[in-house]
């Protein structure tokens, strides 16, 4: 198979665009998709300092690599969750990437170790507060990510969410008619109040397969194994369902999510509406000062519960 744009051998066929591309043309395709995402949602400029949330997986490391390559000022944050071998291995991957790739761009890595800072790994914390591990993990990561962004003066935080993630989440939200969540499912959430940093998802136009292909082509050494807690997640079920539909009619995921975004944009500036609502609802947490809609933020509530449980247990 030959590249559609030049005569070199193709390395990937993308049925949704009805095109096969060689290494160089595919790389250009990926960069173009990221540039389009950044421009069309006014995510950031080359003046902004970006904080990328990295997990050691393909999406986040690839995002960091692309942003640096495109000339953006991007540092990263890794949250060590203390989940056995998975955390040890993923942390190694992130560290190696930092030393071998990011260092050349003078980019920095921040590491937050949950076991060290909060006194227990994420699974132990979840047990203490009687919540599912992934929910506890979500609260922890969101909190630490925002804290570092605000404390260290980053203009924007970026995550590696891709088209499959967003389409699967949209499917889940639609199946349960979670309209509140639908409003928030945009690739760019503006900063709200002083305490919440702006959030962006520059990879939302690319599928997981395209991102993994980019990682393989550019020798980005990521952790292929999944977090053991992800087993049996709803998201996986939605993704498999969507991929089966995608096989039948290529472009399904793209149309599903991007049409949703178009409609949302037309439904007048949804993001402004959210920012306005947040501004009305949020105030500083009584304990830590980060923005929250309750008196004490969910992170502080969770940690107080964990400390209490640890003392009585």
């Amino acid at each position, binding site marked *: 198979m030959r590249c559609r744009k030049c005569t070199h051998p193709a390395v990937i066929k993308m049925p949704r665009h009805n095109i096969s591309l060689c290494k160089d043309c595919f790389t250009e395709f990926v960069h173009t998709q990221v540039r389009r995402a950044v421009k069309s949602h006014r995510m950031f400029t080359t003046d902004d300092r970006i904080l990328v949330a990295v997990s050691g997986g393909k999406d986040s490391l690839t995002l960091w690599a692309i942003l640096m390559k495109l000339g953006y000022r991007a540092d990263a944050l890794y949250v060590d969750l203390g989940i056995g071998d998975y955390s040890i291995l993923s942390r190694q991957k992130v560290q190696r990437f930092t030393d071998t790739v990011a260092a050349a761009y003078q980019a920095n890595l921040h590491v937050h170790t949950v076991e060290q800072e909060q006194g227990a790994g994420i699974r132990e914390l979840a047990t203490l507060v009687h919540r599912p591990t992934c929910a506890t993990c979500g609260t922890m990561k969101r909190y630490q990510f925002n804290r570092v962004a605000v404390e260290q003066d980053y203009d924007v935080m970026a995550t590696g969410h891709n088209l499959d993630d967003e389409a699967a989440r949209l499917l889940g939200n639609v199946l349960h008619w979670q309209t509140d969540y639908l409003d928030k499912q945009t690739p760019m959430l503006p900063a709200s109040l002083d305490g919440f940093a702006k959030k962006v998802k520059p990879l939302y136009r690319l599928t997981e397969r395209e991102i993994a292909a980019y990682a393989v082509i550019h020798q980005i050494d990521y952790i292929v194994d999944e977090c053991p807690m992800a087993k049996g*997640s709803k998201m996986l079920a939605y993704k498999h369902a969507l*991929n089966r539909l995608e096989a039948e009619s290529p472009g399904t995921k793209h149309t599903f999510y991007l049409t949703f975004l178009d409609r949302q944009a037309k439904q007048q500036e949804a993001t402004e509406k959210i920012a306005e609502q947040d501004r009305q609802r949020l105030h500083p947490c009584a304990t830590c000062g980060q923005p929250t809609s309750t008196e004490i933020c969910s992170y502080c509530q969770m940690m107080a519960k964990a400390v209490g449980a640890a003392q009585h247990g």
Partner: protein
Amino acid sequence: MTAASNGSSTVHCKPASHGLMIRPAMKVLVTNPHQEIEVPGPTRVQQLLKRLDLTPEAYLVIRGDELVTDDTVLEDSDSIEIRSVISGG
């Protein structure tokens, strides 16, 4: 285009052995869940995925350390990785 891809070619996941003659086969590593299998070549990438009942959209096929497209013919001497690209987060 090899002569081997005519009509009735069947891919067995275990190589058939005829007496002492053991056919060579390509080594295939599948990730998530981790699995190592042997498949006799030659076979096209497309055909290999179909035989293993894997959705092309959820996998990349890597020969050595190069990506290959679905029309690529894989040989017995090839070392293949079928890498899952779906994450659960």
